[in-house]
């Protein structure tokens, strides 16, 4: 592998400082500097699929915006495919695709297909390529009946799929997804995830994805980066994140009748009992199966479910640990 391949996205001590002005009097204003991103460094290799997570206001979107050239960093070095995004934004635009979950890049009043035709022209995609990519997206994202519908009439899930297709017509080498599954129902989420997995496997597209949904990461990404207060808190596999944050999953079991807390092997433990229902916490890195088998063997089990830890809880735990360490 060449240098560009191992560090396809290169972020080196990048920072972004915003100046916030606050009214303190009738005309007086207080200036305050906010560090949205602080000495952030990481690299992403070509073909990697990386989850980028963190609480609200952590600096995720700011990072993505710097990587696409929307925002100019206040300091540090940034390269995507060897290009400095803020200096050569339009040249980079040909090589990246961007999907903002919160807002559409499609033309609001026009039918979906017209937006694609405009992309075709704007990105100067060769005709054959365009047709091939469009057909593929239409098939895999199930856009068949939607092409003639004006964008403003699409549902959120349909629009999101339309947006993803729009970002991929020009064969981008990098795809940034900012909350791609936000507000989608289970079926739409599954469809979007399936498509992204296939895209990454078949085309080797590098994907950087921000999300609040740990399941997105679990199902898509081999690597996860956690950012908070503009700093990188964790970079590694998701399992490692659970270990680092000592995060726990919760097994909720419904028994036939009220019973005293079930005896489970440590480190699992019963954390709550309410009538016939009991909550059992166990490390997120472990499988639930042996625990379930064990409980089923000793108790009359009616129903059960597993609850995943949420990102905020995991990060909160990581903090607590850093503070005590």
């Amino acid at each position, binding site marked *: 592998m060449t240098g560009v391949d191992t560090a396809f996205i290169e972020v080196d001590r990048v920072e972004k400082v*915003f100046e916030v002005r606050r009214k303190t009097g009738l005309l007086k204003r207080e200036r305050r500097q906010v560090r949205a991103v602080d000495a952030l460094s990481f690299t992403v290799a070509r073909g990697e699929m990386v989850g980028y997570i963190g609480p609200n*206001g952590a600096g995720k*979107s*700011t990072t993505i*915006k710097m990587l*696409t*050239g*929307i*925002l*100019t960093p206040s300091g540090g070095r940034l390269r995507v495919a060897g290009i400095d995004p*803020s200096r050569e*934004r*339009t*040249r980079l*635009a*040909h090589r*990246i695709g*961007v999907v*903002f979950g*919160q*807002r*559409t*890049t499609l*033309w609001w*009043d*026009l039918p979906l297909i*017209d937006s694609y*035709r*405009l992309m075709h*022209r*704007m*990105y100067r995609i060769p005709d054959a390529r365009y047709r091939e990519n469009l057909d593929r997206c239409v098939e895999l994202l199930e856009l068949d009946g939607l092409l003639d519908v*004006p964008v403003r009439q699409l549902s959120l899930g349909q629009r999101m799929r339309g947006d993803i297709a729009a970002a991929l017509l020009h064969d981008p080498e990098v795809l940034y997804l900012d909350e791609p599954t936000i507000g989608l129902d289970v079926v739409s989420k599954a469809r979007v995830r399936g498509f992204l997995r296939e895209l990454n496997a078949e085309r080797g597209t590098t994907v950087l994805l921000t999300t609040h949904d740990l399941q997105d990461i679990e199902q898509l990404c081999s690597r996860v980066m956690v950012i908070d207060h503009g700093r990188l808190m964790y970079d590694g596999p998701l399992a490692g994140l659970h270990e680092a944050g000592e995060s726990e999953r919760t097994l909720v079991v419904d028994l036939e009748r009220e019973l005293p807390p079930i005896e489970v092997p440590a480190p699992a433990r019963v954390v709550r009992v309410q009538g016939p229902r009991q909550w059992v916490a166990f490390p997120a890195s472990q499988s639930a199966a042996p625990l379930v088998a064990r409980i089923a063997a000793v108790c009359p089990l009616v129903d059960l479910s597993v609850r995943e830890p949420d990102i905020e809880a995991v990060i909160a735990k990581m903090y607590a640990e850093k503070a005590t360490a």
Partner: protein
Amino acid sequence: MVAAMWIRSTMAYRASFVLTTFGNFAATGLDFVAIMLMFSRVDALGGYALPEVAFLYGLSSVSFGLADLAIGSMDRLGHRVRDGTLDTLLVRPAPVLAQVAADRFGLRRLGRVTQGVLVLGYALVTVDIDWTAARLLLMPVMLLSGAVIFCAVFVAGAAFQFVAQDAAEVSNAFTYGGTTLLQYPPTLFARELVRGVTFVLPLAFVNWLPAAYVLGRPYPLRLPAWMAFTPPLVAVVCAAAAGTAWRAGLRSYRSTGS
């Protein structure tokens, strides 16, 4: 291609298009009606007779109308900056300026140009001009340079919106306000104001100076005769300045929180 899309986009709201085009035509038309009403009371305005004022009016309106048609949707930039939708334009491989301009191609703005052309036509028929080759040549040069100067003002105003976020009205004062000013003879205004629009914000080069030459009138501020032929130069300088301001604005863009 892109123009066809604008038209389709506009035609998605057909009734609105017809009404706003007509409204635009009528509203701008009323401007001139106001001038004609004045002339029913007086014979001359600042030494200019009705056909001559119509000449100034037509030149200013056509120049401005062309600029407005091309990039008048710049005033929407403030919205885009505030709600963050500018982001989506920034990730595409086309100049943002062109995309913002194309955002809502103002077909309805045709009303303004049409009205300007009509008034200019009336002026050319009625006003008594001693046509020479230089004067004839100056006509298209003047209209084009004027349009570029107005475009530059639009762009500079848009660049200002990156900083001020909600200042469409400030730039409107210079664009829409500027064209209204130019519709009247320079002799009506205080010397300081005329100086301002000559040397600071060079709107005088849109029509006052070159039109004075075509009409064989004394120049405002007693400027030398060759100044009438400088509008293209002024336009180039303005465009360059506006371009610099625009790039600076774009670099300071901060996007929104999500």
